[in-house]
């Protein structure tokens, strides 16, 4: 049955099978690229060291520092303002582990350090057709390049360090087609929040998603990364997009791409679902009616167009979410006064995200009482933004311009939202307390977040776009 039409997922999966799965045994899946950060790796290094093992393929393993790292600069003595001694210890543990095992670390002092899912693609480590894993659920980001990319737990980080393989069952596949053409002021983030809203928070559980259709094709690579990044917020470990000429041009010239780039690119362009490929499930979304979105609840699927009123709760779960958020069903979104705005993260911490925010903020100032953090996704993004003068636009507008890191998205480095405060964030999770105990989070695009900072309340960014 080799001429049976195959999906993109099936093609990449089959190419990485070391041993096929049976009823009794999962497949042994080969991993091309293993990305490592300080939070989910210490116990994995300990596990292989307890067996007297070294990292089997340090040439396929790359590490960075992002989650526990302060985004404020070191003091005059060169000491970094770690939030806790444990955070400092965790960073030093990864520095030690990578040194002992010969793993490349893009650490302090590297001009390539960054949030792991920003760093991987921009270094050209992420390449079409690869299997990519990391101890981080937003590893789905790399699917934007036609990779099977998914998050794993620390035990599995140990498995990959020791063997470069994982024991895996093949997931089901779902095709998500977004038709039509996006309206002005609508971004990849709005597309993703719409898809999650349609699928539901657990609607993708057990599936690998493939995004396609004219809206996906029209997105730039960074918008595609945003869409794939949020796959896990619908419960899907993995979401992917077939490579095209945009993928090839985006990766061209990056540090780790193959020397014979044209030959590699020609292979990459063959990676797509065959006509007639069968998926276990399919959904279609009309992209032309998507508007700027903002969440109103405490899971990423609880979102609606910013222009629409907060929905009225239809069940206990929604009522509980509205209560936590201090929102009333039926009220206009712009009634909600904003305390904090956060622009950054592996979801929206890239150049196109910063440009979209800067376009709205240029020549304007954030509202009284709003605190705004702009945190570039990597040192490369930071340098490029500074070269374009974006940092100046943000600081002139009253925002803080920080060093790269996960920062206020996961709020474990000291950057957090105070209890009860309302934050509009370009990050990926609005769970209770995600941005700090008692923090209330509204997820939105960079444009919506920037517009809300200027207005001082949640607002539609299109009012500021000429």
């Amino acid at each position, binding site marked *: 049955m080799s001429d049976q039409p195959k999906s993109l997922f099936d093609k990449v999966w089959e*190419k990485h099978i*070391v*041993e096929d799965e049976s009823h*009794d*045994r*999962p497949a*042994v899946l*080969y991993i091309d690229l293993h990305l490592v950060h300080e*939070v*989910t790796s*210490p*116990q994995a290094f*300990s*596990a292989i060291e307890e*067996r007297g093992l070294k990292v089997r393929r340090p040439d396929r393993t790359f590490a960075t520092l992002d*989650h*526990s790292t302060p985004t404020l600069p070191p003091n005059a003595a060169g000491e970094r303002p770690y939030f*806790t001694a*444990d*955070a400092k*210890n*965790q960073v030093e*543990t990864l520095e030690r582990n990578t040194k002992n095992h010969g793993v490349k670390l893009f650490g302090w002092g590297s001009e390539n350090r960054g949030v792991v899912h920003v760093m991987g693609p921009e270094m050209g480590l992420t390449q079409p057709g690869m299997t990519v894993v990391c*101890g*981080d*659920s937003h590893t789905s980001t790399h699917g934007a390049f036609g990779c099977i990319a998914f*998050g*794993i*737990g*620390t*035990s*599995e980080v*140990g*498995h990959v360090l*020791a*063997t*470069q*393989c994982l*024991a895996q*069952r093949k997931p089901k596949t779902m095709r998500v087609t977004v038709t039509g053409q996006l309206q002005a002021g609508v971004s990849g983030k709005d597309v993703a929040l719409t898809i999650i809203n349609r699928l539901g*928070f*657990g609607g993708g*559980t*057990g599936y690998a998603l493939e995004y396609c259709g004219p809206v996906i094709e029209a997105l730039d690579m960074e918008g595609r990364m945003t869409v794939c990044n949020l796959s*896990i917020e619908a*419960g899907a*470990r993995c979401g992917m997009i077939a490579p095209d000429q945009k993928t090839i041009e985006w990766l061209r010239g990056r540090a780790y791409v193959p020397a014979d780039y044209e030959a590699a690119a020609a292979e990459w362009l063959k990676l797509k679902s065959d006509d007639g490929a069968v998926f276990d499930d399919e959904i279609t979304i009309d992209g032309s009616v998507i508007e700027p979105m903002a969440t109103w609840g405490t*899971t990423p699927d609880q979102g609606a167009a910013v222009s629409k009123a907060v929905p009225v709760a239809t069940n206990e*779960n929604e009522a*509980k979410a509205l209560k936590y958020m201090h929102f009333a069903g039926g009220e206009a979104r712009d009634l909600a006064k904003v305390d904090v705005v956060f622009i950054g993260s592996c979801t929206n911490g890239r150049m196109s995200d910063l440009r979209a925010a800067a376009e709205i903020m240029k020549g304007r100032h954030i509202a009284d009482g709003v605190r705004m953090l702009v945190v570039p996704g990597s040192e490369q993004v930071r340098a490029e933004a500074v070269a374009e003068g974006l940092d100046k636009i943000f600081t002139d507008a009253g925002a803080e311009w920080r060093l790269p890191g996960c920062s206020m998205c*996961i*709020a*474990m480095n000291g950057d957090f939202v105070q*209890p009860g405060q309302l934050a509009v964030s370009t990050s990926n*999770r609005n*769970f*209770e*307390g*995600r941005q700090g*105990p008692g923090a209330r989070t509204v997820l939105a695009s960079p444009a919506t977040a920037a517009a809300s900072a200027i207005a001082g309340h949640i607002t539609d960014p299109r009012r500021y776009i000429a």
Partner: protein
Amino acid sequence: MSNQEPINTFSSRIAVLPEANIDTDQIIPARFLTTTSRKGLGVAAFNDWRYEKDGTPKPDFILNTIDASEHRVLVGGNNFGCGSSREHAPWALTDYGFKAVISTEIADIFTSNSLKNGLLPIVVTPEIHAKLLASPQQRVTIDLEANELRLEDGTVFIFKIEAFARQCLLEGVDAMGWLINRLPAIETYEREHAA
């Protein structure tokens, strides 16, 4: 995880947290993730639901009303364990004393992580779930050999669990060791794919 104690049959009272979409940030908030150990997270399990800001236990939260040694089975709402891939979530639950989690849906990465830590993720039908929620004081029996969840009223539910993970749990097989034994095949793959 290596050298997991084999699991077969056990009986326990249940602890019920009926909320849907209990994410791993609730199970173990991010600020506890700076540890470099797998142990000791049980005291922080459900920290922000469990304690006041000053650290005082909230008297009405389920984990503060039960004896952990008597309640080894956590029943959660739909889509339990969603969100972050942090294995600290099953570490916190097992360190607290739980041996199984039951829900109508359990997130993929949480399921994978739980199976590697001797925490059984059991997906049940809405009918079985309703029976558990209706009698939250009940004692259940989980028989992994028979794939059975037995409720106090005599209802027997056959649950599904991935065959290899089940074998690992029953026999204490260590998954990393199993993969290490595949190294000859892995090396062959690398030669053939110039990987």
